[in-house]
């Protein structure tokens, strides 16, 4: 209820109110405008506890996971980088320019997969962890939560993650800018020139991985979804193989043998028995944590990360833009009843759309048709409802078979063909195939083991064993087999695409095209970058 006793006093009262309002508004302004965000925190308020460290580490892995499996449907760079340019996949009827360009080796700077941004985002998060985890440890009052061992394990993972991302960068684009510190001060020039890939190997990738190895707790049982001792060794072996530094690759394979699998078993790595048994070959992809062969897989949880809808790797609701290459599909389908257990367990031969890769889903073999050769398995099926919207997919980063075959390749390259053959055979026999002997025609010339043929045999074994594991393209580049393998395939694809015979060009002969062009958005954002020849802007 308003009362008006102030008819006469009103002037004073109003001037008073006006003055108070004016003054209080004026003086309170500074505080008034000093607001804090409501659903985020500024960086100063972060890295202050073990909880923050855990969240920061999850942030780093999450960036890697999103990049590899997909920040949205079918954007799985794991496949687009590792296999889509190879003979494993081609564009489907739902392909866009980006997929067709991969298929036809006609990449342009506008192609989505030529963008290295997600790698550098992951590197940025690793850099942030490396810089701020020690600070967080200091702030944490419960010191038992931040023992040196715990902190070192976190740092090791951050260093290793950074190295692995740079390894992708140099394999895909060659020379690249180096950032080993988070970019925080806007006054600092954000533009950096490309440094030689040699420098990146020598100053980042190898030292980081070695640092990670020195920091990580040895002989611990790792969680398969995180980088542990084994993953660091495997990555180093992989890096040295790429560098063709076979002695060092062999050395790190040796170190891997001493590390433990996520099951708690020491890898060993000396026989077929250290691998996942033949009968349960598929289970290492479905339940990697319980496989003695697993080294590192990417985690995914559809309840929290939504659908792991990976083009060409998992089964989604929608039509994927890439499908299994038609020649590979027909070839594998043609020999589906051989004793090799892997091909039929890798993708669905009955689905002529060629879009059902079921390696990462739980499947089962039916009893073999008795008319088939001894040792053959029956048809293979995966439950029809399995799809990535309600099934998890855990893409493999490293596993022992991959390392066996890399080791075999290193041994072959260093003149130790007999040992090489032994490791190749571990994989072949586990798959149900007959071992090659030193006299097998596939690997010999004039009755003597031919290193080149052996290399091809190892490569073919990797092709079958590691399909949909993001390896094939890098294998072709590492062994310099791109043109040999891809040229005839691209020719056939061009013919299929109605390109007149006189205009079919094949993959071409320009090895500079091993590298990707630098994405236009990336180029536009820094004046210090230049395009990879022969690509044009």
């Amino acid at each position, binding site marked *: 209820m308003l009362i008006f006793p102030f008819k006469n006093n009103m002037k004073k009262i109003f001037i008073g109110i006006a003055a108070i309002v004016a003054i209080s508004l004026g003086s309170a302004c500074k505080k008034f*405008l000093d607001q804090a*965000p409501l659903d985020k925190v500024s960086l100063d308020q972060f890295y202050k506890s073990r909880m*923050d460290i855990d969240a920061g580490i*999850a942030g780093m892995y999450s960036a890697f996971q999103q990049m590899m499996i997909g920040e949205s449907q079918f954007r799985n760079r794991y496949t687009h980088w590792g296999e889509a340019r190879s003979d494993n996949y081609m564009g489907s*009827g739902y392909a866009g320019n980006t997929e067709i360009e991969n298929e036809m080796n006609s990449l342009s700077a506008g192609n989505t997969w030529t963008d290295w941004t997600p790698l550098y985002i992951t590197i*940025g998060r690793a850099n942030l962890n490396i810089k701020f985890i020690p600070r967080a440890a200091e702030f944490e009052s419960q010191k038992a939560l931040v023992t040196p061992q715990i902190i070192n394990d976190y740092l090791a993972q951050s260093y290793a993650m950074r190295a692995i991302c740079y390894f992708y960068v140099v394999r895909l684009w060659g020379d690249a800018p180096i950032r080993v510190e988070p970019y925080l001060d806007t006054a600092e020039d954000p533009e950096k020139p490309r440094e030689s890939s040699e420098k990146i190997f020598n100053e980042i990738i190898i030292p980081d991985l070695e640092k990670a190895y020195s920091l990580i707790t040895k002989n611990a049982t790792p969680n398969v979804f995180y980088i542990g001792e084994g993953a660091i060794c495997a990555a180093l072996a992989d890096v040295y193989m790429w560098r063709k530094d076979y002695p060092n690759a062999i050395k790190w394979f040796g170190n891997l043998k001493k590390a433990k699998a996520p099951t708690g078993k020491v890898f060993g790595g000396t026989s077929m028995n250290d691998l996942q048994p033949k009968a349960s070959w598929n289970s290492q992809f479905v339940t990697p944590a319980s496989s003695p062969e697993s080294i590192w897989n990417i985690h995914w949880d559809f309840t929290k990360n939504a659908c792991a809808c990976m083009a060409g790797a998992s089964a989604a609701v929608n039509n994927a833009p890439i499908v299994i290459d038609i020649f590979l599909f027909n070839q594998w389908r043609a020999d589906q009843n051989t004793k090799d257990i892997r091909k039929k367990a890798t993708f669905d031969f009955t689905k002529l759309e060629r879009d059902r890769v079921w390696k990462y889903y739980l499947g089962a073999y039916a009893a073999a048709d008795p008319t088939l050769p001894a040792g053959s398995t029956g048809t293979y099926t995966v439950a029809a409802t399995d799809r990535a919207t309600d099934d998890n997919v855990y893409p493999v980063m490293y596993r022992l078979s991959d390392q066996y075959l890399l080791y075999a390749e290193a041994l072959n390259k260093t003149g130790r063909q007999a040992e090489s053959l032994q490791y190749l055979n571990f994989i072949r026999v586990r798959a149900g195939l007959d071992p090659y002997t030193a006299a097998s025609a596939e690997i010999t010339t004039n009755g003597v083991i031919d290193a080149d043929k052996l290399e091809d045999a190892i490569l073919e074994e990797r092709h079958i064993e590691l399909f949909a594991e993001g390896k094939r393209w890098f294998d072709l580049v590492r062994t310099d087999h791109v043109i040999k393998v891809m040229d005839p395939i691209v020719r056939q694809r061009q013919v299929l695409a109605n390109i007149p015979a006189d205009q079919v060009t094949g993959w071409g002969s320009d090895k500079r095209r091993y590298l990707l062009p630098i994405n236009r958005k990336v180029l536009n954002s820094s004046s210090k970058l230049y395009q990879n020849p022969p690509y044009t802007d």
Partner: protein
Amino acid sequence: MLIVAMNLVAAVAFSQSVIKITGKVTDSKGETLPGVGVKVKGTTLGATTSVDGKFTLNIPDAKSVLVFTYIGFVTKEEAVAGRTTINVQLKEAISSLDEVVVTGYGGTVKKRDLTSATSTVSAKDIAERQPVNLFDALQGRAAGVLVMNDSGEPGAEGTVQVRGPASLSEGGTQPLYVVDGVITENGSSINPNDIQSIEVLKDAASASIYGARAAAGVILITTKRGQDGKPRFDVQYAHQIGQMAHKIQQANSADLRYYRILQNRTSAGLSTDSLNPSYNSDNDLQDLLLGNTSRRNDVKVAVSGGQKGLTYYSSLNYLDDQGIALNSWAKSVQGRINVDYQATPKFKFTSSISYAWKKGNGTDINGSVRPVFDRPNNLRIYLPDGSLTSYLNSKRNPVANALLLKDETTSWTGQFNNTLNYDIIKGLKYTLVANASLKNEEDVFFQPRFLDDNGDENDGSNSLSKRFNWELQSYFNYNKTIARNHSISATLGVSADRSNSNRYIFDGLKKSFVNEEIYVINGSNIDLTGSRTTASTNSTASLFGRLNYNYKSKYLFSWVYRRDGSSRFGPNQKWGDFISGSAAWRFSDEKLMAWSKSFLSDGKLRFSYGSLGNDRIGDFEFLDLVIFGTGNYGGVGAAYLDSKKGNSGIQWENTVSKNIGTDLSFFKDRLTLTAEVYDKTTGGLLANRELPKETGFIQQRVNFGTIQNRGIEFVLGATPVSSKKLTWNVSGNITFERGTIKKLFGGQEVITDDDRHLLQVGGQIGDFLGWKNLGVYRWDASNAYAEDGTRLEPVNVSADGKTAEYYTYNGQVYTGTRRKMSGPAGDLIGGDVIWQDLNNDGIVDDSDRHVIGNAQPDCYLGLVNNFRYKQFNLSFIINSTIGGQVYNDFKVTLTNNSSSNGPALPEAIYGSWKKQGDIAEYPNFVELRARGNEKRNGNSKFLEDASFLRLSSARLTYNVPTGLTKKAFMKSASVFMYGTNILTWTNYTGYDPEFSSSVLTMGVDGGRYPKVKQFGLGVNISL
């Protein structure tokens, strides 16, 4: 509220000796005028004339002066001079020069004394149209104000752009809305009938009183208030029906079958089952989905009146709108209560409450009409028993989707505004404004299983957003005339505001809804990946002052200063200063100009210069922010730095605006002309800069560059005929404008996120980037070029199309070297698109991409005609934009052989290249993309002229003669018929070239809701 008001009435007693005055008010024809406000000058005493134009008023003093005001008539002052009967005749206002223009924070100025560029739209102007919202009311009315109206869709709004896009920030091109002195989110929830006047402040001199938020112009809206006298009831009812204005040719079943043959030429064959009735219908989906008759019921009721210092205006608007699209509808209720209470002669208390409820169903078609064209017309929609079909041939049934999909948005808006006015001494007034508003919006989405491709997944979500905002203003206004000729008015004040917003999103797991009648989300079915809450806040604090001086209304000056602080900027950058000055010279009052008095009644020149700001960026963009919860790895919630880097150095966007204008009035205001030239240069554009990706960040908000907008505006008003029986008013406005990007961060060229637009120094906002499409190669042999890049013409081409007997170069036989053009899949062949090879390197690639057009019009205009003949009134509005282009992305998707299912437009089916020698408009469908023939984001073929001329509104009103209305106890009554969007002339091949779009992705038509041609009938009654 009401109780308080009644107490106020009771608390104030008047006990003065009085003189009773009676009288009658008539117009120039002698007709009595009801509802005329009669006031005693300098007091709050007043009355309103009755139905027969009579009034009775008690005045305290025989020397009083009475002021008669009536909308549309010239205000008249009459000295009482001892009389007790005063009859007056009011003249109809031809010119609006004496109208008072609101300038913000309690300031007013007579229109003739304006020194700045301000456009006014009055209640009378608004009533000439039958507007549904503010955008309708403004369109075509004001020079320099480009309204892009999205009318057609129920509940749709539009955008208003004042003097070109002067910002790159989202929302930075939208003007600031100030309703009754209070900054309001936008003007869309205002009932147009509540509007007394709209002022558009276009230059710095007028707008800089709103400082940091005014760079895109300010729209001041004043709502109607009550007047003393008997209550007045206004009731308006209008019913309107509409039809899709223009249909696009859609493929029928026969077209589709032919198309399938074209598509499948190289594959095994057709999969059409010629006996299955499900695949052999022939529907017209466009008709089924968009061919409905739209209906709108619009009821507006207003009650106003008052007595002895207490006046009120209360209105209610109920709108029930059903669109042409199946099951698209919107309903709203908007209400307003304005109460003014003059507690004592010096103390006035004003209270306004406005509220709105809106609810609408956004069907699939609302965002884009693509679904209408998605399902081939041969697939049946209904089963023989009348029930709907669902997915067929992996294409959903859009009719079923429209009917069964629920996507309802409901919003509640409430605003409560209190103003205290106190006259401290004569001429000095203090005002305190306190305002609070709350807006809640709820979205409910539910897709039943029936609409799922496998028939087993239902899906639902529920979200609520809440925005609370308060504002406090405290200011003084001072007016004084010294020595008769020197007038001073000044304003000084402070203000502060804060807004808080929250959003809560709950997403249900797919398949998880057991019973489809109810869609609750709880622990058992919540989808963690889609559920979250977000929140943000921002504040502004300001100090402002204004000083106006004029000498005999001949030399006029105005200065404005404002200092703004915003929480959106870093500690050292929070504050910004905005200053403007303006001057005007009424040269027609100079003795020198005496010779022109016979025809030039008033002439004025105006100059203004000043600065304005824009702060519309996200909150806390000055900080490096750590985000939580959107990532998760191994069961641990991730935290990481936002990919948008913070920038502590970021500052206001600063617009310097210069304006030269002239206002001329001829033949006693029978003809008026306003012309303005302006230059509006925005520096420190707030935009996202692309950071080098190697930093681990993607973008950073920076002060990005400079844009200059220049323009010329003309407004012409005329009354060619003004007699007792017939009056004809015409007013037209035309604006020419052009903006140029002057500077960009580090000289960087920016391709916008939609990959269609380019920002570059020397370019314009809205530049389309793409490849020039020069047609389709007729033969394989047609791909032949001379060294200089000129295409050669093959003559006597062989049957297989591969070779020609010889070639001609500009008509001459060519014998030189021939080159071929190549694309991503090798040399181009017959049926491929001929692209312009910009750098003449023989390869069509990225380097041939260039600016192929622009989305902004060069010029836009509005023309309003108003005829009055006896009791009839006819008004119509024409508006037009000229120049500018639209990228018809809708057509791109319907001509690109996108998948094995989506049908194409007939023009593409029949106009595509099929065999050697075809002269075609569209390329060969097969392997369209692999051969680089699509270029979907930048194919100049799909860039179309957006110019249009539209008869956007017409209205014929019959005013029932006063004699008749009196007998029916009505003050006035009228019936009217009207139409909107009646005729459109355009070459655009999509539904309509006019639609709103955001500044960075301007002019892309992804399939907008078609415009609707509407006709309505209505009745207006005042009691």
